[in-house]
């Protein structure tokens, strides 16, 4: 199986690569469009600021490619947020895969949310053998509100979508690669998803 991690200059992708390596899978880091299209599974990572990450995607043409992918794609953290319609962070347009607009937490809570919180109302094969209210590690200041494409929710000031799915596109706000053995299980589940939807 060919697994690629889209390498467009954003964030800590080594951790994701190592997490798959612990599962026995070598993930290839690439920004090559043909290589990404040809992969069986695609990881779309992202840590940092939304509008500058979006610019990097536009410069490499990846903003046009990602929404046309047909194999399972997993956006992680900012990757998930960039798959939404827009983000309040830097007032940027997103890839428009998930029909939801990313907002900032208010100052009623500490921002960023940093640490372990639970995911609930789990609704996807991505969460096979993951129990309700399992703990995941999150670090973020912006969130996707609850919406039709929500497959997991988390509570921090408001209930929001901590995972999204539309067709072959999956997004998780938490960091499965940093969420212990349960996070690792989610990555394993992603690897087991059928390749042709």
């Amino acid at each position: 199986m060919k697994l690629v991690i889209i390498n467009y200059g954003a964030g800590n992708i080594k951790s994701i690569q190592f997490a798959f390596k612990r599962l026995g899978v070598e993930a290839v880091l690439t920004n090559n469009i043909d290589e990404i299209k040809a992969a069986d599974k695609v990881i779309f990572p992202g840590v940092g600021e939304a509008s500058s990450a979006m610019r990097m995607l536009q410069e490499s043409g990846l903003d046009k490619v990602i929404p046309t992918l047909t194999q399972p794609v997993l956006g992680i953290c900012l990757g998930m947020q960039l798959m939404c319609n827009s983000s309040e962070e830097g007032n940027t347009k997103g890839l428009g895969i998930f029909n939801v607009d990313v907002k900032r937490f208010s100052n009623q809570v500490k921002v960023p949310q940093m640490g372990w919180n639970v995911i609930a109302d789990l609704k996807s094969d991505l969460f096979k053998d993951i129990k309700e209210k399992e703990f995941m590690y999150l670090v973020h200041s912006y969130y996707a509100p609850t919406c039709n494409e929500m497959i997991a929710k988390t509570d921090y000031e408001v209930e929001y979508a901590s995972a999204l799915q539309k067709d072959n596109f999956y997004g998780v706000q938490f960091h499965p690669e940093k969420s212990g053995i349960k996070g690792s299980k989610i990555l394993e589940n992603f690897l087991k998803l059928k390749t042709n939807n």
Partner: protein
Amino acid sequence: MLTKRIVPCLDIKNGRTVKGVNFVNLIDAGDPVVLAKQYADLGADELVFLDIAATLENRGTTLDMVLKVAKQVNIPFTVGGGISSVEHVDALLKCGADKVSINSSAVKRPDLINELSQKFGSQCVVVAIDAKQIDGEWFVHLAGGTIPTDIKLFEWAKEVEERGAGEILFTSMNHDGTKAGFANKALAYLSDLVNIPIIASGGAGNVQHFIDTFTLGKSDAALAASVFHFGEIPILELKQKLKENNIPVRI
């Protein structure tokens, strides 16, 4: 509900773990990679590695250690000690560190906080503040607490937040190494003053101290070293006690 974090700190010197009592009399407590993996398995929520003897010459040794830890550990970890440039942070993050902690270098050149948060995001910028209470007033200290400044703790904390820090790691020099509890009054004041998470450090000696810092001290996370390294407080037992006291924790 977001849980309170338990953070073992591993002081690193030449690639080995050490813990100072009041920052002197270092005692060796093991191999950092082995310890880190063990802590992840025992229920630590994240880890901090502090290179207490960082120099330009041994930077490669530390990067190598970070890479080894990232390969084996599946919880987040922060690296601190001797970090003063964007390039250095870039190298650490590329080796798999999740966050970096800066201290003296931020005091000497506060723009570093802005540069790091703009380039890598606030979420990976921890500003560590060592402070000592002198005649009722808290003053920031540098170089592992050895050099006093006239900078006031609370003013500095506000400034680092405004400059883009994602988290503050506050160590009370009055409490560090004493095992007599955290500086909860100052911690609670800090927590109300800024809107970013606060990690309490310095003074952990028993379970009650952790309960106190999460309630009275309003801390978001608590860091300790020797009580964990020498098995005085097993992390799982600590978390069970916290849970019994209605403090949200991940078990």
